[in-house]
């Protein structure tokens, strides 16, 4: 198939009551079936609209409020796909597996691939030095059932997020891919998207066409919101990304979408209601063989050729999500500025329609190891509106902006080829692709 219909479902997860002790298996299954009841409606609706595959969120079946002990009744033994198993037709083959049976039947009865995130358990003993004291491994696990209900993929999340104390790290990173009539797929989960293993390896070495991405992502403005970050990743990596997020406004969890390398196909961001949302879109099965496939970018190409713009004012520090940036204020309605931190210099050229007195913008640079809730090395150039006209609020979350930019170009002396471009407008809306472009020499610039 040259194209296929993709579906993602942003699910408002029904959470279990917080308990100190594990509930019974029956009570756990009751809660999980309530969530699967909701997912079933989305699967049926997607299938009637011709979808070939539907992705549901991480933690979508039992939520995230657990200790290592209290999640145990929600776990099932999930075998490796090589066992060639259709839980819907042979449910007892690997013991108690009601959730896998139901998900498999959903896929089989509706002739659609179903992607979900559940919990796997594996017994171990003292002969294994890594075996936890309670004699079992517990894994945050993605599963994929094909349109016959067969288990075709099982992925144990490698990069756990700091609060996920209910799960164990797999010993090694595993790149899980599988072939379909509509392209080669890979799958990973939430925090994995920051990683080289498995995220980059899956694309660069295994050459997948599309990535399935269950996530439970809470938005952290200005730089770590789901839709801008995930759509930027799809664009920079040159693959389709099918991102299904949890929905919980009190935890700022929203932002799902279907992203192609050349454009955002559909996205959903809703901080007003507690409703789930189904999204569908047609995608190219093999985007890298399409004429619309974006050309590679030399991210520091432009900056290597220019001298830093001299800034007549002092730089100042500011924090963004626990990282200390170096900022410089944009004082005029038009001009060019440079700000540097260690090996990274960021350049910004712009023209505002008018310089407002009630809004202040700053250009920031960060070159260093991020260390909170996970450790990863960043080089970031950013132009942002400060929360107030006080420069000490640069980097704080902001929701709206009235200053209009008629022209802009942002670039940096990056020491990496993995750079993800984001452009977010007032109201946390993505800028439509027609308004900006990424030049071959690495400038994120206006198209006017």
């Amino acid at each position, binding site marked *: 198939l040259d194209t296929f219909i993709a579906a993602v479902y942003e699910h408002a997860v029904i959470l279990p009551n917080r308990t100190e002790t594990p509930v019974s298996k029956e009570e756990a299954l009751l809660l999980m079936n309530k969530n699967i009841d909701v997912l079933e409606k989305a699967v049926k609706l997607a299938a009637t609209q011709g979808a070939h595959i539907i992705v549901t969120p991480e933690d979508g079946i039992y939520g995230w409020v657990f200790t290592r002990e209290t999640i145990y009744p929600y776990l099932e033994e999930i075998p490796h796909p090589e066992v060639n198993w259709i839980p819907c037709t042979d449910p007892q083959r690997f013991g108690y597996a009601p959730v896998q049976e139901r998900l498999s039947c959903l896929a089989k009865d509706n002739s659609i691939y179903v992607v979900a995130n559940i919990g796997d358990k594996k017994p171990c003993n003292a002969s294994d030095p890594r075996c936890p004291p309670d004699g079992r491994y517990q894994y945050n696990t993605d599963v994929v059932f094909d349109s016959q209900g067969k288990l075709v993929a099982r992925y144990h999340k490698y990069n756990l997020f700091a609060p996920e104390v209910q799960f164990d*790290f797999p010993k090694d990173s595993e790149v899980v891919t599988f072939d379909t009539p509509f392209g080669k797929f890979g799958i990973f989960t939430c925090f994995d998207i920051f990683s080289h293993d498995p995220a980059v390896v899956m694309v660069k070495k295994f050459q997948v066409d599309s990535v399935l991405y269950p996530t439970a992502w809470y938005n952290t403005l200005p730089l770590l919101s789901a839709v801008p970050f995930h759509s930027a990743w799809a664009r920079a990596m040159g693959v389709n990304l099918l991102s299904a997020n949890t929905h919980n406004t009190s935890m700022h969890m929203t932002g799902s979408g279907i992203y192609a390398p050349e454009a955002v196909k559909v996205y959903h961001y809703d901080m007003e209601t507690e409703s789930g949302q189904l999204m569908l879109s047609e995608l190219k099965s093999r985007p890298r063989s399409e004429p619309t496939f974006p050309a590679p970018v030399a991210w520091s190409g432009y900056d290597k050729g220019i001298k830093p713009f001299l800034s007549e004012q002092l730089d100042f520090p500011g924090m963004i999500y626990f990282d200390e940036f170096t900022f410089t204020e944009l004082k005029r309605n038009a001009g060019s500025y440079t700000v540097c931190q260690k090996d990274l210099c960021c350049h910004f050229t712009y023209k505002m329609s008018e310089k407002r007195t009630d809004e202040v913008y700053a250009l920031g640079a960060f070159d260093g190891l991020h260390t909170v809730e996970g450790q990863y090395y960043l080089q970031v150039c950013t132009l942002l509106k400060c929360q107030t006209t006080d420069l000490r609020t640069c980097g704080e979350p902001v929701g709206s902006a009235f200053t209009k930019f008629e022209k802009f170009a942002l670039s940096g002396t990056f020491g990496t080829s993995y750079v993800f471009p*984001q452009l977010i407008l007032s109201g946390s809306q993505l800028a439509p692709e027609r308004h900006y472009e990424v030049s071959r020499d690495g400038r994120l610039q206006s198209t006017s």
Partner: protein
Amino acid sequence: GAPLPILVMALYGRVFEKDPPRLGQGPGKLQ
């Protein structure tokens, strides 16, 4: 292109070769 009310623009680079062996800080880090 129409003038845009920009909230934030970013070029978000990841320098993988400078990462520690594992991104997360869950219990596995202690094992």
